[in-house]
């Protein structure tokens, strides 16, 4: 089976000296839905920012065998879609359709192709009819799905989501789960919502203090009460 993401010995310290990642090793198979769990401050978000070259730490990050470098970030960013935790960071245009069109337009696609992708992504995320809506007129659940639509518009091979269930109510979580299940491709779900990750992901890795401290089948790892408690997940 091909490997979607391979991370080797990745370390990163923020400019103020705080070490966020301290030698991460991780492999995600192509087509898998992979859970990246860890307590607040474990380094999940920092790790995700390395997947498309927004941050460049020491070590290697490979996407489908291609190492992420400063030279190929454009290509990598087309292949890796990041969905940030706060939809207000992702949705920065006055209208939803412009937000979804933002990525395809940056690719330089012709207008009809851009419009087709917008329709396709809004349909996939159940947001048809909200094209002209402003983000501040949408619910959090809608905005979260809109962030996913915006990332999907680039047709990424890997979709990485940071805390996708944060602040969502029951229905929002259920709808998000159904949406993610319906999407093909490799997905990485970062967070500490163990029930959600457990339901969607076959494999998980536990991140603590910038290191992968456990990895394996989700049912085995997430059931390990001692482990889960030790790393601040329960």
């Amino acid at each position, binding site marked *: 089976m091909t490997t979607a993401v391979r991370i080797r010995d990745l370390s990163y310290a923020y400019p103020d000296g705080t070490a966020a990642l301290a030698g991460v090793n991780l492999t995600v198979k192509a087509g898998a839905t992979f859970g990246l769990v860890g307590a607040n401050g474990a380094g999940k978000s920092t790790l995700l*920012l390395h997947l*498309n070259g*927004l941050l460049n730490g020491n070590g290697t990050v490979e996407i489908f065998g291609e190492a992420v470098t400063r030279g190929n970030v*454009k290509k990598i*960013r*087309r292949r890796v*879609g*990041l969905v*940030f935790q*706060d939809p*207000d*960071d*992702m*949705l*920065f*245009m*006055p*209208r939803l359709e*412009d937000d979804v069109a*933002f*990525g395809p337009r*940056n*690719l330089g696609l012709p207008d009809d192709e851009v419009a087709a992708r917008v329709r396709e992504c809004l349909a996939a995320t159940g947001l048809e009819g909200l094209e*002209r809506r*402003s*983000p*501040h*007129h*949408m*619910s959090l659940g809608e905005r979260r799905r809109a962030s996913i639509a*915006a*990332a999907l*518009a*680039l047709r990424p091979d890997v979709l990485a989501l940071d805390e996708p269930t944060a602040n969502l109510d029951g229905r929002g979580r259920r709808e998000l789960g159904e949406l993610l299940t319906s999407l093909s491709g490799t997905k990485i779900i970062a967070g500490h919502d163990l029930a959600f990750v457990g339901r969607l992901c076959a494999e998980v890795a536990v991140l603590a203090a910038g290191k992968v401290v456990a990895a394996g089948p989700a049912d085995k790892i997430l059931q390990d009460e001692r482990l889960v408690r030790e790393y601040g997940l329960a």
Partner: protein
Amino acid sequence: MRHGFLDKYSDRDSFLHRRDARVKIVAVGAVLVGLNVLRTPPWYIPAAAAALLAAGVAVSRLPLFYVFRRAALVLPFALVIGIFLPFTTEGETLLTFDVAGYNVEVSHAGARLYATLVAKAYLSLAFAALLLATTPFGMLIKALAWFRVPAFFLALLSFTYRYVFVFVDELGRFRRAWGVRYFGRRPLAQFLALGPAVGALFIRGYERAERVWAAMLSRGYDTNAL
């Protein structure tokens, strides 16, 4: 939080809502130039503008006083800015006061200048409010792009529009957090605490800007595009 204090009614349907945004921009622009080009226009110019505004509001199907209330926001500024005009403009005397032994004169021309200034400011803002209330902001940006307004300026405008709502939300949360711990004592100490609070808001805004920038780059934004 859901709100829309800027464009609450822009997605309604009416004769004005259905007009092309470009036409509305040109029309409002023409009215603003006509209204403001003369320092003291003859009385019928502001009167005609007011009539046009009333007609516009009538066919816009907006709540009756919405536009008038919006435009009233400019009144404090206009009233304060022009406050000395009646006294400092030379001309035929209209009124004289006795203030603490000084003789203060209000000239006819000054009073008229003042009234005109306030009317022009009020009417101008009312037309802008009418335009905003009958045109979705996205359409406005598209129309401005058609008029070849530079992309950098449009990006600035649409980010401002988008994040003013986020900022107001943040401010609202902040005020509530303040409210639950404020018991009306020691006003000076409370006032001094405002500085760090404003600083905190600034830092939050700065950090958000960095995250938005990261989100833009993630979706293939070309840094040379602007």
